[in-house]
């Protein structure tokens, strides 16, 4: 194989994992935008989505589309429940309490998963016929293609939601200035719940796409994926929706390029090096806005 086809192949890999990072990063960014919380339980929502997909397909022999829908619904409900049960009572508390609670929720979910499903990986049956599509010299794996397309459609839908719908505009207004938004008649609690629902639904989609590439569910699978998506959100500018998308793809492609240079064991290190560099050089990220404190 020529160097060129290797690079193309890695770029396709990068786009595939980048799509997943982007979907997950959106949840971090939207939640941070609206309540200034780094929701470290977000990665574990993905883990729960993967178990739901596994249960549906392996236990109930459901078709993959049904499994996807079940995972999305499950993640959405879980995300909203976490917000209502764990974060809402702390709305007036210092932000550090909220952050620590999020870490607590993360451990809680991981341990419950381990209790219920055991520590071993559950293998998810392959559900996509992975004969690659041949484009001249280059073989594009079907999973990569489906992942990029599904993620792309989800992001376009999110953009329409946020830009055009009443609820989407309310979300942006609350992110900018919750007090002023309330004075417009916007119900803050509903808007925050809605934001968690949307972020978690995207995580649900992300989890099924992730399972296409790595078809296993384990209790801790969400933590590394979540951390990398978090780095993507910071790179793009936390709070920014286009930033999260760009950051996700950038991290995916950076990983792939490192792998194509034959340094795949350095992949994770490079991602966290990016985090450190961003925090040192431009903490607001590529598209972030300088944070102003609001009353």
């Amino acid at each position, binding site marked *: 194989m020529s160097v060129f086809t290797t690079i193309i192949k890695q770029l396709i890999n990068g786009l595939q994992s980048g799509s997943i990072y982007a979907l997950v990063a959106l949840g971090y960014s939207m939640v941070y935008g609206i309540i200034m919380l780094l929701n470290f339980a977000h990665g574990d929502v993905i883990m729960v989505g993967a178990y739901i997909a596994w249960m549906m397909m392996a236990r109930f022999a459901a078709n993959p589309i049904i499994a996807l829908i079940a995972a999305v619904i499950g993640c959405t409900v879980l995300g909203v429940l976490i917000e209502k049960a764990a974060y809402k009572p702390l709305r007036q508390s210092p932000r550090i309490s909220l952050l620590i609670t999020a870490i607590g929720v993360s451990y809680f979910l991981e341990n419950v998963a381990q209790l219920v499903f055991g520590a071993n990986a559950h293998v998810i049956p392959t559900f996509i016929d992975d004969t690659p599509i041949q484009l001249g010299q280059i073989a594009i794996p079907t999973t990569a293609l489906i992942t990029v397309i599904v993620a792309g459609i989800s992001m376009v839908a999110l953009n329409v939601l946020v830009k055009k719908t*009443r609820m989407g*505009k*309310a979300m*942006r*207004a609350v992110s*900018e*200035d919750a*007090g*002023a*938004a*309330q*004075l*417009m*008649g*916007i*119900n*803050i609690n509903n808007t925050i719940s809605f934001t968690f629902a949307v972020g978690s639904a995207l995580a649900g989609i992300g989890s099924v796409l992730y399972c296409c590439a790595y078809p296993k569910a384990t209790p801790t699978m969400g933590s590394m994926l979540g951390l990398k998506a978090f780095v993507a959100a910071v790179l793009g500018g936390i709070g920014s929706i286009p930033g999260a998308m760009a950051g996700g793809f950038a991290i995916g492609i950076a990983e792939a390029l490192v792998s194509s240079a034959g340094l795949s064991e350095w992949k994770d290190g490079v991602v966290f090096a990016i985090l450190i560099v961003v925090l040192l050089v431009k903490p607001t990220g590529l598209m972030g*806005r300088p944070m102003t404190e609001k009353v």
Partner: protein
Amino acid sequence: MAAMLKVNDIHVYYGKIHAVKGVSFEVNEGEIVSLIGANGAGKSTILKTVSGLMHPKSGTIEFMGKDIAHMEPNKIVTKGLVHVPEGRRVFAHMSVMENIEMGAYILGKAPEEAVEDVFTRFPRLKERRKQEAGTLSGGEQQMLAMARALMSKPKLIMMDEPSMGLSPILVEQIFSIIYELRESGVTILLVEQNANKALKITDRAYVLETGKITLSGTGRELLEKEEVKKAYLGG
């Protein structure tokens, strides 16, 4: 005539800080009423309490005969009481048009004639409707904040220091807009540090000092009072 807004002996706290100490006042339909007082007197706190952003520890607030003291702000807006907060608080990263639409949030879709009406009042905003609100000048942002508040067709509009930080020409313009608003039937509760200007367009006013009302009267009466002249009108 029954008062449209009736605030009765409210006490408001920030944690342990007792910011408003037993304030009572009324606003009647069709009036412009002003609260004047030095920085830190508690003017903004009173408006925030009336609009529901804060709640009084004791005392009552009645708007059109309903007790609203413990209602949430998003509910209070639907009763026809809007608050243009201090510092304008426009949504800086949303367009001018989107800000105006947010003002009609409780109505669902922004009614076209309401949009027309604010664009007639504020032609500058029409020219800039596609621009991000954060890129507007201070005076334009104040106009946007007022336009946004008018979109829900309020009965009573509360404005917190609308002239703050504006050039004299713009101050003049803002006050004449307030005056016109009243002419078109909106009742106004105005908070100002610019006592001179405020008292001139005001029907009645209350003077606030460290959380308490110390004087009240018609705008003209207060303009004549020695203690007002000394403290708020520069001699």
